[in-house]
């Protein structure tokens, strides 16, 4: 029993160490790639696959988030006669939390799954060994372009999600709930600051990098066979999701600290 526990702990520590080394290698390779124009075509390709093709699905996600928020929050605010403040609530939630997090979760599913499956299959069919056998670093050739593409494009995708969240929330508020649009926008404009939008977008860099690194790592360490690839994809998604939530919490605390340092007083209702 104790021996088994110890062995398990050894395995976990070894894997954590391996992951740490992989992350470090990926960071170094990504920085190097970004200074070498020769690798840009690889990054463009990944940007097309990872970023551009995710736009529709991310916009749909954002729109539904905004629309649901409007429907759910209206009754509470109307009960205390503050329904015209609905815009502040929806828009703050969308740009600060729900837009970034749900867009990132969507990406973890869409992009992370595909990355893990692709690299996992390459690993199982010895293609990654083939890259190494020809004297090329697979982390530089395969991981760095994907990490860079995810890192650079997730913030932009979050902007799309935010935009559609704002639009979706507004459309439902005006057409279904009958809120005065002038009041809605003026309360929103005074309640949502550039800081709130920036916080959401900056989170995107962290989310994007963690999705790419975790998915690539799971692909690289994938076990053999269809079962191995499937398992790696599942683990990659679960780990990415958890790391998105954990990062979101950590970043919320950090950004709040920064905000409070510079702007100590802010009233919630403008």
């Amino acid at each position, binding site marked *: 029993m104790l021996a088994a526990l110890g062995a398990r702990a050894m395995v976990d520590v070894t894997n954590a160490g391996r992951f740490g080394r992989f992350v470090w290698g990926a960071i170094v390779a990504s920085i190097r790639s970004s200074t070498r124009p020769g690798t840009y075509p690889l990054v463009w390709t990944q940007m097309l696959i990872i970023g551009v093709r995710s736009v529709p699905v991310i916009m749909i996600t954002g729109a539904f988030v905004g629309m649901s928020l409007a429907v759910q929050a209206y009754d509470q605010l109307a009960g205390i006669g503050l329904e015209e403040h609905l815009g502040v609530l929806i828009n703050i939630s969308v740009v600060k939390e729900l837009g970034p997090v749900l867009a990132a979760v969507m990406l973890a599913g869409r992009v992370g799954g595909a990355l893990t499956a692709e690299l996992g299959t390459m690993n199982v069919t010895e293609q990654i*060994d*083939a890259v190494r*056998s*020809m*004297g090329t670093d697979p982390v530089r050739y395969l991981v760095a372009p994907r990490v860079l593409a995810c890192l650079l494009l997730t913030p932009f995708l979050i902007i799309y999600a935010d935009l559609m969240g704002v639009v979706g929330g507004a459309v439902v508020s005006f057409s279904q709930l009958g809120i005065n649009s002038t009041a809605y926008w003026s309360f929103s404009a005074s309640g949502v600051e550039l800081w709130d939008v920036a916080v959401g977008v900056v989170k995107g860099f962290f989310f994007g990098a963690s999705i790419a690194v975790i998915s690539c790592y799971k692909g690289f360490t994938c076990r053999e066979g269809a079962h191995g690839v499937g398992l790696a994809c599942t683990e990659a998604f679960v780990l990415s999701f958890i790391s998105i939530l954990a990062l979101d919490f950590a970043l919320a605390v950090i950004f709040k600290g920064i905000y409070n340092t510079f702007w100590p007083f802010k009233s919630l209702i403008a």
Partner: protein
Amino acid sequence: MQSRDGEAVLSVKNLTKRFGSKLVLDNISLTIEKGKTTVVIGPSGCGKTVLIKHLIVLLRPNSGEVYFKDRRIDNLREDELNGIRTHYGFLFQGGALFDSLSVAENIIFPIRQHYTISSWKEVEELVKAKLAMVGLDGYQNYYPANLSGGQRKRVALARAIAMNPEIILYDEPTTGLDPIRSDVINELILKLQRELKVTTIVVTHDMTSAYKIANRIIMLHNGKIAADGDADHIRNHPHPVVQQFINGQVGDDDLAVLRMSGTISQAQFLPRDFE
């Protein structure tokens, strides 16, 4: 480092490799001579592939040393190894072609990684020459998914020789091919060795192929070298394990197990097992 008559290009000393608690290679020492064809035989799972992956340091030993031309390579960093690996060509068991790239792009891949290409015309000529060497000129724009197993291996071979390597490692080149296609691969191995004067190391369990191409045959068994010599030496080897393998016979122990489990009842679950 010198062994017998030839000049050593590759050698391993006291190589030991474990996967978890499983000992795969047990204290193996071996020298590969320049320009010769060495064939490593042995039953599936005996560590043949693991051995040749050590020769190019795709795997690192638990203990022991690997030398390339008198230079120790098993302890080098990956970026230092990348330069050394350009002297090698490795043919993987399934070919390991990049399926997102066309045949021509696959062959250009190693060149592109190590040189800045100035003249695409030259590169095209080179791809044509390499494909012609494996008899597949004209297939430049095919994708690996549209090729048969044998064609894939030949394209993979063209890719392996793209950088004019000094050493070519073949991992089960004839496995999964019909006898005619296997012989095409054997002839190719012989042709490349003759024309490019490369050192060849082949891992296989196909004895027809082994006899045809080998200057020297090494048999692995339980992580150790069971036999080492030319084809005649292996054919007449006194060790029963070697004889069983080259003649393709089942051992007495295995046979006993097969016969024993012939009674169905022992292998089936009974309703009471689920209660």
